[in-house]
């Protein structure tokens, strides 16, 4: 078995890796006043790696590497992988835009920031192609480890330290648990290749309980990443303590990375062993929605509120997955998750971008500091409202379509358990509305708390980031067909 390297297929990873090296070296070489070049290199690198993604998509052939005899490989480039690679790269681009002024103006050294960020992104685009437990593990750790450091970026701030250690320790623990589970899966199936595991699972209808537990333990690792309840504890604390751009990155890219892994292992690996993962995911979904939403109701800090919101949103994204094996839902579920992730990325990044923009002016993340934003920064307030309403799922903003696809999958499944989950989701989307509008109400219904009506200055990069997210949310909301195709394409 000689590894065949398809360089076209690996081009995005290669370009990104090169960029990472260049960023690292450049940071060493540049004089202090030239350091602003570093983010520019990073940005160019990210956009450059998008090019092969596009050419691959145009090319359209499925490329399989490190394949076994049956032709299924450990590393695959297919529409599914490409869709997510594109998502990760675009999200990374937006994150870079969001970060550049935040990092540039802060007291902390900047070169490594981009190095770490890009490394994490590299992990993600590897994850999109990974079809093997080892690759998935490596990708997952490549995603995580840089973000542990990023979360503690503000070295002298105890809160940032706390964010980092919590994220780190829970992360490491959950990957230990995941690995423990994976070791048993390997023990049962004799392979780390997901297709082999699927074969084993479908060939062994009456599988040992230990195998089921092993699958569950594996899922725990991803549950941590996607911040599913009850493995979400790190989320609010870390999101609050970490620098806001990092939080944005964690809540979108890192989370999407976890979801990609989960989708891959579930659809490619564990799909036949329905008893093992479906109930678990059902409970994760229900708990995430309920706990995330209810606790979010009590938050006074906007980042913390968005953290719980992202827990709840994670629950919504899990819903289709939790019913994927029922009825005819499997295709619709995958489509729903992919669509939801794409839309979620746009609206959540947008919301965090606005938070960053506003905190430049107010120096606060308290929701009450948003009072009267509609008066002194109407454009920001409008955009923030758009993002929040989209998160709440109000048409004609993209969020509605995401929720719609979720409900569609639920009803396509049609089983009583699916319907129950659907109703839980429906009720929760109403509860969610309450805390999203808490911010909206502050912005529009209240008088400004701070003196003066000087408007908020938005740096160009941040402005572009917000504009991209805003445009995406509105356009997809009005014409969802654009993402509809992506969701449909992203099949295994």
């Amino acid at each position: 078995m000689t590894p065949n390297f398809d360089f076209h297929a690996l081009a995005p990873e290669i370009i990104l890796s090169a960029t990472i090296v260049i960023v690292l070296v450049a940071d060493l070489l540049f004089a202090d006043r030239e350091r602003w070049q570093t983010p520019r290199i990073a940005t160019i690198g990210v956009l450059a790696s998008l090019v092969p993604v596009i050419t691959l998509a145009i090319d359209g052939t499925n490329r399989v590497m490190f394949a076994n005899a049956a032709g299924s490989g450990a590393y695959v480039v297919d529409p599914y992988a490409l869709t997510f690679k594109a998502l990760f790269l675009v999200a990374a681009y937006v994150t870079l835009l969001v970060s550049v002024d935040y990092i540039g103006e802060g007291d902390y050294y900047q070169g490594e920031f981009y190095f770490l960020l890009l490394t994490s992104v590299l992990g993600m685009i590897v994850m999109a192609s990974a079809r093997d437990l080892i690759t998935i593990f490596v990708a997952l750790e490549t995603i995580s480890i840089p973000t542990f450091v990023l979360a503690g970026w503000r070295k002298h701030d105890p809160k940032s330290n706390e964010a980092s250690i919590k994220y780190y320790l829970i992360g490491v623990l959950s990957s230990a648990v995941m690995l423990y589970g994976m070791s048993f899966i390997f023990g049962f199936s004799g392979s780390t290749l997901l297709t082999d595991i699927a074969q084993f699972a479908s060939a062994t209808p009456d599988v040992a309980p230990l195998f089921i537990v092993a699958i569950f333990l594996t899922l725990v690792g991803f549950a941590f990443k996607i911040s599913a309840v009850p493995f979400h504890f790190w989320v609010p604390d870390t999101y609050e303590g970490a620098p806001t751009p990092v939080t944005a990155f964690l809540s979108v890219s890192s989370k999407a990375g976890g979801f990609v892994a989960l989708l891959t292992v579930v659809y490619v690996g564990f799909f036949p062993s329905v008893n093992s993962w479906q109930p678990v995911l059902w409970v994760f979904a229900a708990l995430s929605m309920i706990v995330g939403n209810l606790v979010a109701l009590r938050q006074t800090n906007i980042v913390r509120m968005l953290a719980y919101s992202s827990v709840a949103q994670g629950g919504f994204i899990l819903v289709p997955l939790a019913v994927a094996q029922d009825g005819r839902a499997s295709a619709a579920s995958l489509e729903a998750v992919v669509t939801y992730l794409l839309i979620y990325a746009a609206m959540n990044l947008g919301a965090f971008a606005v938070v960053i923009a506003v905190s430049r002016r107010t120096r606060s993340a308290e929701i009450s500091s948003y009072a009267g934003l509609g008066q002194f920064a109407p454009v920001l307030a409008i955009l923030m409202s758009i993002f929040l309403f989209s998160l709440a799922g109000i048409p004609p903003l993209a969020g509605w379509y995401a929720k719609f696809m979720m409900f569609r999958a639920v009803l396509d499944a049609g089983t009583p358990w699916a319907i129950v989950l659907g109703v839980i989701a429906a009720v929760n989307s109403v509860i969610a509305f309450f805390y999203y509008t808490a911010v909206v109400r502050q912005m529009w219904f209240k008088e400004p708390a701070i003196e003066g009506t000087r408007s908020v200055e938005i740096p160009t990069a941040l402005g572009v980031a917000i504009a991209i997210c805003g445009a995406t949310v509105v356009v997809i909301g009005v014409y969802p067909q654009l993402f509809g195709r992506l969701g449909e394409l992203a099949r295994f």
Partner: protein
Amino acid sequence: MIMNQFLILSAFLFCVGVYGVLARRNGVLVLMSVELMLNGVNLNLIAFSARLHAVSGQVFALFIITIAAAEVGVGLAIVLLIYRNLRSPDLDGVDQLKG
């Protein structure tokens, strides 16, 4: 080949690790407990690999060892930061963020 002894040992290692993580207050000791858990995993993988004559288990274990090293490196750095800021390596002190 006798499988159960390996599995029981690895489970024991794993559980000790879990206990350590939960019970130890010192950040460094917690990190070491995590290492114990990972070693339990490695033991499992190698045992299975040997039994099934599948090499990928050993490859997996190698990856784990490597990445664990990186992880612990980062972890120690973070604990060090905490020690600097709080003058204590105890994890009990890090509870500013809650609710």
